[in-house]
C-alpha cells in the first residue's frame, strides 16, 4: 500500500509580496518578531526534549553494552561516563562468540539471518519484476482482473496463511529449513512487490518499448536491456525494504522454525534470550546491538531508498 509522498515544492525566491501586505508587515513587524522568536524558542526546546526522549533508551543500552558485568549490576549506565577507563568490548566478544553465561553464540544466528534474508529478497524481486512487466506490457486475457486480485491480496494478514503453510512444508519435508522461510517470505512479499514495480513500470514511456518491439526484440530482451536498468531505483527501494523486513521478522521465523532453533534468525534468538538470560544485561545489550547493527548501517548509508521503501510498504505484514 503506497503512502504517496508528494514531492516538496521548491521555494520561489523571485515571488514578490504585494505592496499592501508589505506595508502591513512593517506595521506589525516588531510585535510579530517577538511572538515568533518566543514560539520558536519554546518550539526548539520541545523538539530537543523529544529528540532526547527518543534517543535515550537506545543510548542507555548502547552504553551498557560497553560496561563490565559487575559495573552494570552495581550502578546505572549513566555512571559509565565517570568510568571511561573501564569500558570494554568483551560483552560483544561473549555475545558473538559464546562464553560467560552464553551457550549460544549470536554469530551463528547472525549468519542464519544473512542466509535467510538474501534469497528472501532475491526471489520476490525476480518474480515480482517479471510479473510486473507482464501486467504492464504484455497483453493477455484476464490481465486486468488478475492484477486487481494480486493487488487486493495485500489485505491478507500473514497470520491467516501461516499455519497451513507451516504444515505443508513439514509434509513435503522442508519444515524447519531455510527453504520454508525463503518460500514463505516470497509469497508474503509478492502482492506488494508486484503492485509497486508495476506502478513504476507503467511510468516508462510506451514509445521506448514500442521502438524495441518494432525492431523485433523479444520480451525477454526488452525486460533485461530496456526496463531493468530503468527500474533499478524501485528495485533498490523494495529490496532494502524487504531485506529489513526479513531481517527484523520474528513471526514467520517462529512459525516456520519452531522446532529447529539451529536455523533461527537473530531476532528469534534475541527473543529467546530476552526470556532465558533475564537480567544478564551484559549479554543482552551486546546481543541486541549485534542484531540492530545491520539495519542501522543500512539506514545510515541508504537512507533515501530506505525511507522510500518503508513509506511504500507501510502496511505490509
Amino acid at each position, binding site marked *: 500500500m503506497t503512502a504517496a509522498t508528494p514531492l516538496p515544492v521548491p521555494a520561489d525566491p523571485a515571488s514578490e509580496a504585494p505592496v499592501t501586505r508589505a506595508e502591513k508587515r512593517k506595521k506589525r513587524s516588531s510585535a510579530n518578531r517577538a511572538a515568533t522568536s518566543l514560539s520558536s524558542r519554546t518550539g526548539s526546546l520541545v523538539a530537543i526534549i523529544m529528540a532526547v526522549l527518543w534517543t535515550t533508551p537506545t543510548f542507555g543500552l548502547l552504553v551498557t553494552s560497553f560496561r563490565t558485568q559487575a559495573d552494570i549490576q552495581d550502578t546505572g549506565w549513566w555512571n559509565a561516563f565517570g568510568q571511561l577507563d573501564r569500558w570494554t568490548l568483551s560483552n560483544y566478544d561473549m555475545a558473538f562468540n559464546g562464553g560467560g553465561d552464553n551457550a549460544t553464540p549470536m554469530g551463528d544466528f547472525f549468519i542464519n539471518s544473512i542466509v535467510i534474508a538474501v534469497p528472501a529478497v532475491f526471489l520476490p524481486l525476480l518474480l515480482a519484476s517479471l510479473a510486473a512487466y507482464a501486467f504492464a506490457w504484455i497483453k493477455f486475457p484476464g490481465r486486468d482482473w488478475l492484477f486487481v486480485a*494480486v493487488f487486493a491480496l495485500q489485505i491478507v494478514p500473514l*497470520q491467516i496463511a501461516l499455519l497451513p503453510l507451516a504444515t505443508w512444508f513439514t509434509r513435503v519435508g522442508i519444515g524447519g529449513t531455510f527453504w520454508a522461510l525463503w518460500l514463505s517470505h516470497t509469497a508474503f512479499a509478492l502482492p506488494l512487490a508486484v503492485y509497486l514495480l508495476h506502478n513504476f513500470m507503467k511510468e516508462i514511456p510506451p514509445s521506448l518499448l514500442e521502438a524495441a518491439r518494432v525492431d523485433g526484440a523479444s520480451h525477454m530482451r526488452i525486460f533485461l536491456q530496456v526496463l531493468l536498468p530503468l527500474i533499478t531505483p524501485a528495485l533498490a527501494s523494495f529490496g532494502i525494504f524487504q531485506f529489513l523486513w526479513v531481517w527484523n521478522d520474528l513471526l514467520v521465523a517462529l512459525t516456520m522454525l519452531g522446532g529447529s532453533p539451529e536455523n533461527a534468525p537473530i531476532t528469534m534468538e534475541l527473543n529467546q534470550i530476552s526470556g532465558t538470560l533475564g537480567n544478564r544485561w551484559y549479554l543482552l545489550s551486546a546481543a541486541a546491538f549485534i542484531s540492530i547493527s545491520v539495519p542501522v548501517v543500512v539506514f545510515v548509508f541508504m537512507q533515501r531508498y530506505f525511507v522510500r521503501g518503508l513509506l511504500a510498504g507501510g502496511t505490509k505484514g
Partner: protein
Amino acid sequence: MPALAPTVSAADAASKFGTMFLGLAVFAAVFIGILLIASLFRGKYAEKAQAVAFAGPAILFIALGLLYPAILTIQRSFYSGKFFDLNAGLGNAKAKFVGFDNFQKLWTTPGLPEVFLNTLWWVLLVPSLATGFGLLYAVLVDKAKGEAVAKALIFLPMAISMVGATLIWKFVYYFNGEPGGVQIGLLNAMLTGVGINPHDFLGAFPWNTFFLIVIMIWIQAGFAMTVLSAAIKAIPDDIIEAARLDGVSGIQLFRYVTLPSIRSSLIVVLTTIAIATLKAFDIVQASSGGTLHDSVLANEFYRRSFVTQEPGLGAAIAIVIFLLVTPIIVFNVIQMRKDQA
C-alpha cells in the same frame, strides 16, 4: 580490549552459505528455464506463452502461498481438534466440524475478553499518539538547522526490529524486586531518586499494557513524522507567505493552513499505523509472551495456534484480525484514490 576473533564454527557457516547459494542457483535456474521454454513458442501462442512465463510463477506463488492457505484457515476455524492438519474436516477423526464454536470461544474463553480490551487500547492510543508526536516534531524541525539529523534520530527506531526495540525498553523499565536493591533501569532509578518506591512497569497489571504501548508509539512516531514532514513541505510557499503577511500567528497558521493541507496524509498515517498495530505481535511476545494479562490479538493468535495447541481458536483469531484490518485498508485505498484524482 580483546579483538572479536570469530570462533563461530566455520564448517557450519560454510555449509549454511552453501545452502544459500544452492537455493539462489535453483531459483535462478528454474526461472531461466521457464523463460527459455516460453521463448521457443512462435506465432499465435508466442505472446501468451511469454505472459504465462513472466506472470505465472508470481501468481502461482501468491495462490499457493497466500490465497489457498487463507482459505484453509477459514475452513479450519470451523473445526475442533488439537493439531493443524490439511485434511482436517475431510472426515479426519482428529478434527470435527463444530460450526461457530471457535468464534464463540472468543468471548467465552477466560482471558480472551481482556485481550480484546487490550487490543482496543493499542489501536486507540498508538495511531493517535504516534501521529501526534510525529506531527509535532515534523512541524518543529521543519526548515530548522540540522533538520536531517534531527529527523534521523526519531526515525531510527523504525529501522530496528520490534524485538530489539522491546529489549531496549525492557532495560529502561527494568525493575529490581529486591528491597533496597540498586535500580539500574532508568525509570526506577528516577523514581527511587525522588523517594518513590520502584515500580514493576512490565509486570504489574493493569498498567503494563500501557508501558508496552509506549514502545510501539516510540517506533511508529518516526514513520508518521517522515510522511507528514513531506506533506508539510509540499504546501506551496506562497500560501504560507500570504498567511504570514496577514499577521497570522504560528499556531493559527498551523490550525488554518497546515492542518487542512495535510489532512489526507494524516488519514493515511493514522490508518497505516492502526494496521501495523493490529498485526504487531513481537512487542508482547518479547516482553512477557502475553502471560501477564498484557496480550493482544496478534500475540494470542500465535499463542493459541502453537503454544496451547488450539489451532481452531487460533484460526478464528486470525480471521478476526483479517476482518478488523480489511475495512481500514479499504478506507485507506479509497482515500489515496481520492487524493490522486
